């Protein structure tokens, strides 16, 4: 199954990456190729096999509701490109 240019552009918007005209064609080919691998998987006969939501045979992995200390604000903000008043500072977001 081949992807259209529009689909590639849509994926780029969702992923927040900017693509040049040449990029669009390059990724259209590469992504189409990846999807072809799933076409192969699709040929496997799964009749009678229940769908699974997870790849390992685990279930109900939970923890008790007990708090433990967090990191300091300094540690949390250590990698922040910009900070202000103890907050991460980002470009204006419209509500």
């Amino acid at each position: 199954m081949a992807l259209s240019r529009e689909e590639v552009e849509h994926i780029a918007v969702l992923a927040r990456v900017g693509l040049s005209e040449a990029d669009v064609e390059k990724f259209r080919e590469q992504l189409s190729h990846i999807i072809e691998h799933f076409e192969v998987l699709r040929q496997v006969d799964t009749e009678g096999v229940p769908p699974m939501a997870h790849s390992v045979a685990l279930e109900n992995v939970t923890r008790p509701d007990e708090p433990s200390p967090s990191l300091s604000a300094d540690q949390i903000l250590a990698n922040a490109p910009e900070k202000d008043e103890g907050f991460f500072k980002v470009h204006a977001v419209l509500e």
Partner: protein
Amino acid sequence: MIANEGLATVGIVYETVIGLEVHAQLLTASKMFCQCSTNYVNAPPNTHVCPVCLGMPGVLPVINQKAVEYTIMTALALNCSIPTSAKFDRKNYPYPDLMKGYQISQYDMPLGIGGWLTINVEGNEKRIGITRVHLEEDTAKLVHRLSPERIPYSLVDVNRSGVPLMEIVSDPDLRSPEEARQYLIKLRSILQYLGVSSGIMEEGSFRCDANISLRPQGSSEFWSKVEVKNMNSFRAVFRALTYEVERQEKAHREGERIVQETRGWVDEKGMTVSQRTKEYAHDYRYFPEPDLPPLTLSSAWVEEIKARLPELPDARCHRLISQYDLPLYDAALLTSSKAMADFFEACLMEKPQRAKVVSNWILGELSHLINVEGIEISQAPITPTHLVEMLDFIEEGTLNLTIAKEVLEEMFHTGKAAAQIIEERGLTQISDVQELEELVERILAAHSQAALDFKAGKNQAISFLIGRVMKETRGRANPTLVNRVLKEKLEKGV
């Protein structure tokens, strides 16, 4: 859409169709997928954060068992069925309040489906369907600022990120803003009875978005709906929906199309405004969360949770009616708040036969004071013991009703005992017959015309005279005695 939508329509009666989406923070001690404390409300920014809720690569979230149980408990209380298995999914969207670029939520296998709750509509019970109850995580909080150069920027506080958030979606069964308000009151009270959420809308622990559309009365089709956000109180929900009903009805009558969009309620302006931002596809690309194995909800586990369900508002309402012989109106109002129902029952430990009197005081004067302050009864300094003592003073004749209201108000604000207030303010009721007789004689002498009017058959003259006595004693005279003494004196012709 449908054929006549967008055409001018005269004489059509419209029906309102509302569905509500409620998000309630769960009262767990730790976050949904990490052990950071949820007690962040007055904390400095970014002090309740770890690599998991910060969304660092390579971390492993682990499910908080209590959050799952609280959600199942809520689903059971809302008469939902609990599936045998559930899972978490990633909901992908880019926004600065979402640290990972996705929210861990539940898509097609939520913890509860297909339930209902009842509301009272003009004295009749109405069932409102619950589509689903699911569990997800809260986002970080954004604060919007303006630099001295008037350049806007935003600040991110990650403390709220990862707090367990339960989403409860109703069916589009609500037919008016008032029904929507009733639904929210009932849902909040159920969550409070369960002890799973504080349910305080103003603090953001209980949030509501609404979907609203109109359609011709009797139709079963759905017209384009509008999603309304930004409503921060029950009153705001009611006002915003009332505004939307009017706006949409006007648009339909004038032949305009209602655009399917999100609108924000602006409380100061009393209107909703379009929030159409840059058109980007809401393509959430849900897929099963690979970091979290699925949940198997065995019937043993569900039964064990069901056994822990406390008495819920409807059951308590019916019990109050049968146990204390209360009218439905009183019982429904009292049980709409767990704190109020608890206060009511605590007042009746010794004299349960006084139920109606206690109910009148709580739903009357006390509710008035609570509403003025905008708090829950449990947040006021007054205790059930205070109210009981005050009622004792009324019963033994020390206080009359007018003075008792003043005492109640002071008890409400200060938490002082009734006896202390009476002592401090010299409020004891005058029930001494001799004292009252002397007083009545003085009043009659000063108002001889009123006395003559009474004898001439004007019965209302006695109300005037009682009023003078009460004024003279600053309301402290026992009204029953005053009435008796006055009648005796008037009839004897003194």
